[in-house]
């Protein structure tokens, strides 16, 4: 029940407003000698009822929905108000009880005061319920985001079987002829598998870790594709190496972008191409661009049997939404003269 005093203050404001109106009506009916007198009585009753409600709700019967309690707090508040009103205009608590116009004034103010109190009460209660629902919703959404993130993480942990078996075949083929390359590739593959299969989500993963993983990944592809693949890492305007080791990012976030560039850009291109990973930061944003000079989108698809193009990118999009809730963006544009650029902008403050 935080911000409760704000609601009480709001109630007080409504109350004052209602009382001011009642006072004017009472004056108009010539039941009081002046607006001042009339307002004094109205406010006395209005505030007393609110006070009574406050004491009942906060201390005596919190969370009670009984009508008897409701009636009791209204009557006690009303009697108190009439007494206070008497003190306010004539200095005696019983003045209003034997004042000539007493019955009309009393009944009139009583009815409206009770209504106003009830109105305030429901309003506050509705606000409480609304806040409660909002809190529940937020909790639910958060849980959903966590599950979604876990699901997507699982998806990204999947290894494309075609890549895996081709890589293994390549390593086998090199054991006799180039044992050093075979050894290095096997180590690279082991590192990649470790990242992919490690499900511990609380471990920190820095930008440096991700780039290091990408190097191993691209190295494997370059062993497979030979001259058809070249790759570059381009840190722009980042002089300090601690930048990479101090910045945490979600694991395997960039890897699907690179996988996409190779699978749908370079591999389907007879001549192959280049993949560059550009990292820069501007303001509070980390900007990562995966730029390929591959086949692009036009000529795509006749060479692959299974048509699963870009599932990886869709997953990245969903994952960004789950983790950053709209504060991170991914956009895809065409490269000149061919190929695709995928741009990722991540907020840098809190991860």
């Amino acid at each position: 029940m935080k911000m409760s005093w704000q609601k009480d203050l709001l109630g007080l404001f409504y109350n004052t407003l209602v009382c001011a109106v009642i006072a004017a009506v009472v004056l108009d009916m010539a039941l009081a000698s002046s607006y001042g007198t009339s307002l004094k009585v109205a406010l006395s009753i209005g505030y007393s009822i609110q006070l009574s409600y406050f004491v009942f709700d906060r201390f005596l019967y919190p969370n009670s929905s009984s009508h008897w309690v409701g009636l009791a707090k209204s009557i006690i508040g009303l009697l108190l108000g009439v007494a206070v009103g008497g003190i306010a205009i004539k200095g005696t608590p019983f003045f209003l009880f034997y004042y000539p116009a007493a019955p009309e004034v009393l009944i009139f103010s009583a009815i409206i005061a009770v209504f106003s109190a009830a109105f305030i009460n429901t309003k506050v209660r509705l606000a409480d319920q609304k806040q409660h629902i909002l809190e529940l919703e937020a909790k639910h959404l958060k849980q959903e985001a966590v599950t979604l993130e876990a699901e997507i993480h699982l998806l990204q942990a999947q290894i494309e079987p075609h890549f895996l078996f081709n890589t293994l075949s390549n390593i086998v083929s090199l054991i006799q002829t180039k044992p050093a390359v075979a050894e290095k590739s096997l180590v690279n593959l082991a590192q990649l598998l470790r990242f992919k299969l490690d499900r511990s989500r609380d471990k920190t993963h820095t930008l440096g870790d991700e780039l290091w993983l990408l190097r191993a990944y691209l190295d494997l592809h370059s062993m497979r594709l030979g001259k058809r693949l070249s790759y570059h890492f381009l840190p722009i305007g980042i002089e300090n190496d601690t930048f990479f080791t101090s910045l945490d990012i979600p694991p395997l976030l960039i890897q699907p972008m690179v996988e996409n560039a190779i699978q749908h850009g370079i591999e389907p291109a007879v001549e192959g191409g280049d993949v560059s990973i550009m990292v820069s930061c501007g303001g509070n944003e980390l900007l990562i661009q995966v730029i390929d000079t591959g086949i692009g989108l036009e000529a795509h698809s006749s060479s692959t049997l299974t048509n699963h193009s870009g599932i990886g990118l869709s997953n990245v999009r969903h994952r960004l939404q789950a983790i950053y809730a709209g504060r991170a963006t991914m956009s895809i544009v065409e490269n000149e003269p061919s190929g695709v650029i995928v741009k990722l902008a991540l907020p840098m403050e809190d991860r």
Partner: protein
Amino acid sequence: MPTALVVDDEPNLVDYLVSKLEMLWPELEVTGTANSGLEAITLAQRLKPDIVFLDIQMPGLNGLRVAEQLPTGTKIIFVTAFDQYAVEAFKESAVDYLLKPVIDDRLLETIQRLKKQAPVARDELVALVKTLVPEKTPSLEWLRVGIDDTTELVQLQDVIYFKADLKYIDVVTLDKTYLIRQSLLELEPQLDPNQFWRISRGCIVRVDQIAQAKRDFRGRYDISLRNHDQILKCSQAFGHLFKKS
């Protein structure tokens, strides 16, 4: 002496298979190697090899398509790292195949078979390829869309719904709304009717994004979405989409 062509887009794997063949079948002469489908076809037409070892996933033209265009009478051995469907189909047919990494014993079996058997009939090969690579009508996969004066690309599978807005179409995705200068009428025929449903004159929605359709008393439906807060209206004329049968 029999001759062979070895085709794979990964150079190491070509060298490896060639060396294995030299070891296990010394009488075979590998007269050429190729790294792409087109190269393979050109070489095969020139060298007329008896046997072609053919990788399936290759840039340009995949191995299955290459097989169709090889001279009749060529014996074809498909080589693949991982193609579930293809392998299942091969098992059902007389077509032989090898899995990567190539195992010596398995390669020996293939060699024995190659020495004895006649090439697979052309008709069977063509029929097999047809089942594995159906003639695809090129379907729309990417959209060129405008946002803030730039042109970006959006994958069709990321679109939640399209909404016509005067001369433009709003392309609504999980995180952004883009514009395309096209009419819904021009766009609709390019979409797969199993994936996208027209639900009113101005709106096309991705079917798997529909969470719920609530009918009102006038026979229209309120469509709520899985990943978006917007409630879409389905007009009476398209109500049949949601009618329980």
